[in-house]
């Protein structure tokens, strides 16, 4: 009786996989022929981008990563847009996703405002510096930023592959800064049917880490969920659910400051920004529905492989090696 829905689901998954792999291939092929790419009508790339972002949105939810971290390396690697625009729009994409998720996470008390505010102040200030540095380096030589992006994306894919988050870290003693800021809380764990109390430790080191996270988020327009969660969870001892939710909410603040820098510089072109934002948001909604029946672990590994490829492609492009077309 279950054979039919399972086979339908398999067909659907194959179609998604085919699509996500074929889009970069199409884009890559066109990129190798600049004259052809320029000859396309103006609506061609925005339309492809919309469907591409729809699939990215589905995959991002299933792999548990933000849209920005997939958007920037893949779109800068396989679409004909300059990296200045991709980074600016990448931040708008991450911002829209964070704003959409934030209210629900705050209401359910999973995202903790008290934990987010000091962290956000550091990360958002540094993301402004990162955005300005990124735009400066890009003006000097765009290949420089492409190479740094490639290295960062490879690092992120390794981080996603090897980091083992802890669901409920044990914090025996809260440090003085965590205590002074009142960085503690309690949330309801629906799975275990119990309330879970938490507090932070190694708070100062954690806050320092957000300097680097803010810089990278602003410089590459990546969002920063991939870095927020390990720092909050593994370093500061915040439970995984609170870390993930607070990280998502945090992006709505960090990305706002960096997004304004790119927006004011003129790096957000509506013609390509709106299909990206709408595509990724619709994809995320679809992804949440598919998540109930999919195998997220498999998707996660697939996304890590795609990220590694995108990182290598960015390095190849930045260093002008030409191995990957």
């Amino acid at each position, binding site marked *: 009786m279950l054979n039919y829905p399972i086979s339908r689901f398999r067909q659907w998954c194959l179609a998604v996989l085919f699509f996500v792999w074929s889009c970069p291939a199409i884009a890559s092929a066109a990129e190798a022929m600049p004259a052809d790419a320029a000859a*396309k*009508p*103006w*609506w061609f790339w925005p339309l492809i981008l919309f469907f591409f972002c729809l699939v990215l949105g589905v995959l991002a939810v299933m792999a548990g990563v933000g849209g920005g971290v997939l958007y920037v390396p893949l779109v800068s690697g396989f679409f*004909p*847009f*300059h990296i*200045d*625009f991709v980074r600016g729009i990448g931040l708008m994409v991450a*911002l*829209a996703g964070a*704003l*959409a998720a*934030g*209210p*629900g996470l*705050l*209401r*359910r*008390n999973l995202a903790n*405002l*008290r934990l987010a*505010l*000091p962290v*956000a*102040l550091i990360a*958002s*200030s540094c993301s*402004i510096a990162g955005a*300005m540095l990124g735009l400066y380096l*890009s*003006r000097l030589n*765009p290949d420089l930023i492409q190479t740094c992006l490639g290295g960062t994306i490879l690092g992120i894919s390794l981080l996603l592959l090897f980091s083992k988050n802890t669901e409920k870290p044990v914090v025996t003693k809260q440090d003085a800064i965590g205590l*002074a*800021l009142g960085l503690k809380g*309690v*949330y*309801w764990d629906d799975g275990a049917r119990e*309330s879970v109390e938490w507090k932070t430790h190694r708070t100062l080191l954690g806050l320092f880490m957000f300097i680097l996270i803010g810089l990278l988020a602003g410089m590459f327009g990546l969002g920063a969920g991939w870095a927020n969660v390990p720092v909050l969870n593994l370093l500061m001892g915040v439970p995984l659910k609170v870390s993930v939710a607070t990280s998502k909410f945090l992006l*709505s*603040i960090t990305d*706002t*400051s*960096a*997004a*304004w*820098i790119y*927006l*004011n*510089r*003129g*790096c*957000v*072109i*509506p*013609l*390509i*920004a*709106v299909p990206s*934002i709408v595509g990724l948001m619709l994809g995320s909604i679809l992804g949440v529905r598919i998540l109930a029946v999919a195998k997220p672990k498999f998707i996660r590994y697939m996304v890590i492989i795609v990220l590694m490829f995108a990182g290598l492609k960015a390095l190849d492009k930045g260093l002008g090696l030409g191995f990957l077309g």
Partner: protein
Amino acid sequence: MTASDNPNLRPSKEQIIYANLLLMGMVAGLVIMFITYIVYLTGLLPPQVGMDAISANWGKGIHEYLELTHSPNGWGWIPLLGKGDFLNFIGFALLGLMTIVCYVVLVRGYLRKKDWIFAVISVLEIAVLALAASGILGSGGH
């Protein structure tokens, strides 16, 4: 025991107000963005930069792009709101300004509770976001 039995499990009043404001701003921003994009694509308002000019130049760096398309930077889009392409910036700006509005509410709440540390943190964050949004830092070099 359930989640609703324990008052510690409930989000603070500031957190709820923040969430409600964010939700309203986000929905308004996305709806405006969608409508203005339809206006732009259908040509109800003529664009400042033609679609073909955009697609011919989106592979160039931002400085070259702005020069070639005669596009403004900073808040220079405000006088061009009658143009289909720059009309879309209302939605972007709303999404970018929502967090600042939410923080103003937070400051009031923290001052009332005499939570000075978080009141200062919130004021500083407003200053950082306002500086970023002002265009003082981001719109140079054109």
